[in-house]
């Protein structure tokens, strides 16, 4: 399909586009600086609201004619709150500022907006190539990404429909509405788009099945993102909600559905607000509701809030939840495309899958196929978190290796530590060691390695991580989130967790590892739904790739990552400890640090809770606190019977403020 030309656009769309472009022109004519502030949840958590307030205050106080432009998430979590200042009169290109605190905001408003001094020491980079300031595109975190689905994220105001339309939004829908549904499905099938919710099912095939199914059809956007450490769906909804809505409308037309729903978790209050408002705006503009864009096609969209059960992200659980029942998955088949919500054929697609659609329909299947690999075309959005220098959302073409993603794009492991493992696909995914860093990221390679694409959570772990403890963490999560319906998941996952907890507490028994393996295999095969079937993946992969670490836990009571508290102990290296220094003693919450007869420090292992505060408190020039595993390796320093008077105990010091 070639991009639709102007003649093929409907009158209704052209009217909307004109209004949108007019608004843009008005803004351009007003001129003056524009301050773009990232106000998605991640930005707000980092203090972006306070930053905006500070800007507002200074602009009002000093009557600076600048406009604040709230935008969504750029995906650069390490730099939040992010502000981009576009001040054309200063002669500088738009400048990206990172970690803009209210103080920094006030300073920038005065010095840059009023006096034209961009404060080079605070500049992160310029948004356009120029001769004055290095462009952000010179950093691999920016240049190696390939933004497709997140193209508009962080650039447009998610609350303003006109901005989306001015960027060419809803043009694909306008064209699709006058196409035959079969032709739309053909394009999507030809593009090779696979569901981005995790399983990677071909989207075109799903729609085809729904279209041929009999009954009153329904399309649902699955925005019940629940993996720990994954937040790309939230970011997309909070930054570019109309792209998702447009995708939903395209999907509805292709499948022949007159009703649509957005199932979004209520723990995303801002995303719920933004998508609800977007639905309302689209309805008022005639992009949803009755007779969309004068095409005679109807689509009513409702927003449905989930109540916090992870398992409701599973499509049959999601349907139960929407029907007002306890969110428990049921056996498939029948698949929702033949019998879903209230028995009607239901197409359920992930947020990202839907967000790709306007682009595929506009630019063509060939364009989409030109990205990524043969069997996994397109891009992948990852939320890279954990021990990396530049965490955040990264969109890369499929087929890029894990090494490129973690080391080249996200800056590698901080604090000069070594890489240990990466958990891909959240609690359903697998834990891959360094030898897998060169595998390409696509649906099939990851599944082959024992992990899975999942929804795109990627947790990087450095050498000071205990994989047993990490597995325990994920099992604890899935065990709590199991719906409790089927035997394997309900009881089996609990046994797995129990064995892992035992091992991390140093009470591992002979045969525990074999038991873990056996039980994991059976749970994987015997469980009813995807949650149970993938829950043992973290254990199975970490046992396969880090078995010796499990063995040292069980046999030697040693935790190589020094993470399992019961297996470790702190002690103070008396060679390095400075006489008279009280840094560790004063911060210890349980008074486990005492003064030895030589006026150095020792740790009472019976009282110590191993919080690690003393490690942080010990001045780097002494660096005297050591952690060892197993715990009995810590040298025993006797606490003197009579407390030795330390500097802090002297009356003259105690008074000190």
């Amino acid at each position, binding site marked *: 399909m070639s991009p639709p030309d102007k003649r093929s656009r409907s009158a209704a769309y052209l009217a909307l586009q004109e209004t949108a472009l007019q608004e843009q022109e008005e803004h351009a004519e007003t001129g003056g600086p524009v301050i773009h502030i990232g106000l998605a949840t991640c930005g707000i958590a980092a203090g972006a609201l306070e930053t905006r307030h500070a800007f507002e205050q200074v602009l009002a106080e000093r009557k600076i004619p600048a406009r604040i432009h709230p935008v969504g998430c750029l995906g650069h979590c390490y730099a939040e709150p992010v502000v981009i200042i576009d001040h054309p009169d200063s002669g500088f290109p738009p400048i990206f500022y990172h970690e803009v605190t209210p103080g920094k905001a006030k300073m920038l408003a005065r010095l840059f907006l009023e006096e034209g001094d961009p404060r080079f020491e605070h500049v992160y980079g310029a948004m356009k190539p120029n001769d004055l300031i290095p462009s952000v595109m010179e950093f691999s975190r920016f240049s190696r990404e390939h933004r497709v689905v997140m193209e508009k994220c962080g650039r447009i105001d998610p609350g303003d429909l006109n901005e989306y339309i001015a960027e060419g939004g809803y043009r694909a829908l306008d064209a699709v509405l006058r196409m035959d549904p079969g032709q739309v499905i053909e394009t999507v099938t030809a593009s090779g788009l696979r569901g981005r919710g995790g399983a990677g099912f071909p989207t075109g095939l799903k729609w085809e099945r729904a279209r041929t199914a009999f009954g009153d059809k329904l399309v649902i956007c699955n925005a019940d993102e629940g993996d720990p450490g994954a937040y790309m769906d939230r970011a997309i909804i909070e930054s570019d909600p109309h792209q998702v809505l447009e995708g939903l409308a395209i999907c509805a037309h292709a499948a022949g559905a007159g009703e649509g729903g957005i199932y979004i978790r209520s723990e995303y209050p801002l995303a719920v607000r933004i998508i609800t408002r977007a639905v309302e705006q689209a309805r008022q503009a005639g992009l949803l509701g009755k007779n969309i864009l004068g095409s005679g096609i109807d689509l009513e969209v409702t927003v449905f809030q989930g109540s916090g059960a992870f398992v409701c992200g599973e499509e049959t659980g999601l349907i139960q939840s929407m029907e007002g029942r306890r969110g428990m998955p049921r*056996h498939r088949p029948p698949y929702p495309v033949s019998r879903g919500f209230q028995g009607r054929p239901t197409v359920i697609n992930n947020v990202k899958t839907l967000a790709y659609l306007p682009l595929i329909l506009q630019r063509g299947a060939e364009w989409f196929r030109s990205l990524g690999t043969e069997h996994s075309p397109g891009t992948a959005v990852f939320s890279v978190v954990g021990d990396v220098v530049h965490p955040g959302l990264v969109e890369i073409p499929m087929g890029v290796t894990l090494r490129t993603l973690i080391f080249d794009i996200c800056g590698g492991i901080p604090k000069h530590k070594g890489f240990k493992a990466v958990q891909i696909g959240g609690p359903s995914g697998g834990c891959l060691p360094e030898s897998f860093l060169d595998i390409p990221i696509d649906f099939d390679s990851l599944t082959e390695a024992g992990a899975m694409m999942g929804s795109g959570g990627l947790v990087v772990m450095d050498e000071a991580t205990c994989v047993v403890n990490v597995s325990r963490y994920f099992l604890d999560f899935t065990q709590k989130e199991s719906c409790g*319906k089927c*035997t*394997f998941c*309900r009881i089996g996952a609990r*046994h797995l967790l129990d064995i892992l907890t035992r091992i991390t507490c140093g009470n591992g028994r002979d045969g525990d590892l074999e038991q873990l393996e056996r039980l994991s295999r059976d749970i994987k095969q015997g*469980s009813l739904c995807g949650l149970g079937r993938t829950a043992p993946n973290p254990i199975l992969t970490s046992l396969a790739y880090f078995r010796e670490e499990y063995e040292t836990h069980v046999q030697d009571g040693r935790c190589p990552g020094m993470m399992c508290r019961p297996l470790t102990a702190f002690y103070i290296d008396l060679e390095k400890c400075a006489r008279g220094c009280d840094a560790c003693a004063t911060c210890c919450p349980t008074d486990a640090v005492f003064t030895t007869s030589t006026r150095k420090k020792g740790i009472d292992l019976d009282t110590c809770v191993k919080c690690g505060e003393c490690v942080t408190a010990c001045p780097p020039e002494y660096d005297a606190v050591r952690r060892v595993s197993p715990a009995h390796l810590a040298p025993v320093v006797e606490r003197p019977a009579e407390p030795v008077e330390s500097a802090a105990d002297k009356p003259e010091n105690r008074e000190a403020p």
Partner: protein
Amino acid sequence: MSRISFQVNDRKISAPEGMSLLGACLNADIHIPHLCYMEGMTEPPASCRLCFVEIEGRREPVTACTLPVRSDLKVRTDTPAVRRLQRTALRLLLSVHHVDCKHCIANYKCELQRTARFLGIGLKPKHLDHYSKEPEVDDTHPHLIHRPNRCVLCGRCIHICESRHGRAYIAMARRGFDTVLTFYGSTDAIDLPAPDCTACIDVCPVGALESKHGE
């Protein structure tokens, strides 16, 4: 309605179209362990995970209750893979079951006893820790005594209650391992449609529900 014949363990059996494989096998006196399935269920919950069988051409064992009969089916009900899954499932159920058969109303007619005998495993599984729920007895219901540590959460009581009274007066509450039966806090007999209905007690495979008013 037309009948379909297919092969189970070298035997040819037949069943009406649309019937589940489990129902067909049970009718033909081929025993497949099961707890949550009841005759006449249109959509079995498939939650007990005991009725596994192996179908020729499929990589993994599947639950017989969710599979409609087809003429090309070649079924084996006793392969090592099937038995392994069944034994694990039963051991898991027993690891949270208060085994005290002597004092249990279901003694000698208990499905767990029967299944354990069928699969050849003891009632106290080795290698698995035992967990109990609190409280041992839930007697908040006006007519029923519920023992969570006997319950296998098969959901039969919920199913029968719904089909008898149009809506279920029993449901599952909480999540994951803590899932229990609940009576919506209905402590008052007026909330209930039929005080003398004992359908749930009758269908319980293990004696987790008991009448407060005796037999």
